[in-house]
């Protein structure tokens, strides 16, 4: 019942871990990310196994344009940083700063998603559609799964922004914001691997 002593007074330093519910949520989410790692690991393996099977379509080297992807990478990495700022602000119990940094994170996420959609449309014009080859199917599945995670994260964090605005930082909202931060870092890490394995390795051969 550790939560009750704090509920009416000051918030503890790490409000996300102050209650058993909060600690459960954080640990459960870490474990969930473990499962997600296997999920993306399998998708990566499939992609690596099939990436040379272009079926007469454009190869990775012909298709990818690194400047756009590098810009997307920069944007997503920055959004990870801003989500850290949001968590730090939350630890200082600054509701407004927390919300502001979360809004910046969501905007950067949207920018990333916009670039990705633009990129996919471009590829489709070059005949690199989902059903074109084993390479294209595995490419869109891997990168698309990541994009889907980004989109889900944007919706989720937006919903949390609304909740923090309505209720402030409490023992109930803090763990939610914290695990959303974990999630955002995770999709960032996955992207680092996508950038290396899909794009950089695609460029060099």
């Amino acid at each position: 019942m550790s939560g009750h002593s704090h509920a009416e007074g000051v918030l503890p330093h790490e409000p996300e871990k102050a209650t058993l519910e909060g600690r459960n949520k954080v640990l459960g989410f870490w474990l969930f990310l473990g499962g997600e790692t296997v999920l993306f690991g399998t998708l990566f393996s499939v992609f690596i196994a099939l990436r040379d099977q272009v079926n007469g379509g454009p190869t990775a080297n012909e298709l990818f344009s690194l400047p756009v992807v590098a810009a997307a990478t920069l944007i997503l990495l920055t959004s990870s940083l801003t989500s850290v700022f949001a968590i730090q602000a939350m630890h200082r119990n600054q509701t407004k700063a927390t919300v502001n940094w979360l809004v910046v994170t969501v905007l950067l996420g949207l920018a990333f998603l916009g670039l990705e959609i633009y990129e996919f449309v471009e590829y489709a014009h070059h005949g690199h559609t989902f059903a074109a080859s084993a390479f294209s199917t595995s490419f869109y599945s891997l990168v698309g799964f990541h994009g889907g995670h980004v989109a889900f994260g944007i919706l989720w964090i937006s919903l949390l922004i609304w909740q923090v605005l309505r209720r402030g930082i409490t023992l109930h909202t803090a763990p939610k914001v914290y695990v959303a931060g974990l999630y955002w870092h995770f999709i960032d890490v996955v992207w680092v691997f996508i950038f290396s394995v899909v794009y950089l390795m695609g460029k060099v051969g």
Partner: protein
Amino acid sequence: MAHGSHAVKRYKGILDWLTTVDHKKIGILYLLAGGFFFLIGGLEAILIRIQLWKPMNDFVSPDTFNELITMHGTTMIFLGVMPVIFGLMNCIVPLQIGARDVAFPFVNALGFWTFFFGGLLLNISWLTGHVPDAGWTSYVPLASTTFSNGPGVDYYVLGLQISGIGSLLGGINFLVTIINMRAPGMSFMRMPMFTWATFVTSLLILLAFPALTVGLVALMFDRLFGGNFFDPSAGGNIMLWEHIFWIFGHPEVYILILPAFGIISEVVTTFSRKRLFGYSSMVFATVLIGFLGFMVWAHHMFTSGLGPVANALFSIATMLIAVPTGIKVFNWLFTMWGGSIKFTSPMLFAIGFIPTFVMGGVTGVMLAAAPADYQYHDSYFVVGHFHYTIVGGLVSGLFAGVHYWWPKIFGRKLNETLGKLTFWFFIIGFHLTFFVQHFLGLTGMQRRIYTYLDGMGFNEMNLISTIGAITMGVGVIFFLINVIVTSAKPRTATNDPWEDGRTLEWAISSPAPEYNFAQLPLIRGYDCYWKEKMEGNREMQPAEPLGPIHMPSPSILPFIMSVGLFIAGFGFIYHQHIVAAAGLAVTLICMMLRSVIEDHGYHIEPEEIQAKGVKA
């Protein structure tokens, strides 16, 4: 309590079961639904055996036979035994570690309902006439649209995908529960073996099921959206499916058997009235089996041309698993050695388990020898082997567990005479059915054939096998009669109905009150309740004063979320993408509502606990 405790929401009747987040009720739901699917799978097995009882039989058509074997395997593994395992875990693990509930009661309910609706989706295929027929392993290219056109295999893909969500959620839930919610003094090395098995199994679920998720997504993309993962003509690779399926599939068989090992450890110690022999080596063996389980998937693919080096490595890794399993078998034998054994019905199942599982293990090592496997592969030898481990092993273990914990779950002890009849019919029928199948395989009968010619030397053994299957069916009917007879009796089970309970669940009333422990108990050693009894205490010592107990509110959202996924599944199967989107939208909106609606649950006050405590 000035805050957090608003009006208590309590539902009655059917709505109570649809909205419950209580782990004990969810456990019962798992047992009921799992039992239901188990009966369907069993019926399919009997039909298979009737078709095979004589040469050139035409009881079912070849197509129906393919559907029967596919649905039998899939239903039994994913919808029969796994949910019963989850049911026992839900009912027992929180009680064994001294927790008031699982870590995520809402997610627990969601896990049950996604499993249930996934299973329903899969089995509705019988009513629509488009039944999955590519085997429970659903190998491509057989499962691709080229050879399996029509919605049959799509039911497999989407049904398993939806029910897989439930398994994953359950796995995470038990891991967090066991890590974070053990009672004061319940260190990891004081946990009962069933809890240990649950812990390792949950870890395997967490790390194995996402691979199946990806495999099923890939197969779905190929079948529904023109993807090329497994289409060699567009650069795809059929071996990928086999790898992905077995990277999930081999840990899956340990997901199944480890809980049975846990149950056997509990039952054998209780009825030998002796401390478990080699507890720490049991824990070590469990963890080691879990670890090695991820290293051996390619032993299902020896004949697919991986080459001698890969085959040799996977061969050796597979044989290694015999070592920790052997440790377990000897520990059970040494536990019984010198104990004062009570031959109750759970104990009979446990004693039957040990030699039966050893036989399945021995044929496992035979199959692990890659060169020999070229002979055994895809023959009835394999069918005999895995039924020895899964039916003779796991299902015996589950029967042991269900008979053992029935009074704790339902407050009534199952009838011992009927329980023993169940055991004898089941074990004799089991060995009649499957022992001869090894020899059928060695004689040359392939698995998955719908009939065979006269004069091949298969006739007598197939007849024996069919008679055995019907005998097992009679055993199951005895069990059903037992359940019905028992449920008509009054709830008279005491806290410790077997009188020799060692673990924490036997220290509280049968069935447990909704908050499990009025005061969290203080755990002073391994076999904590036995320890207190030996020191002359009738109850556990409390670790906290009596106070208000926080309870989670019931919710209908998990049910609706799963219905949404069920609708979406139908939409995908019949290419109605608007329906699919609508179903997914229902689920997403429910997720949003769950996030937005702040529900702090309610409190049960000490006065209420004491009023009930007198009765318990």
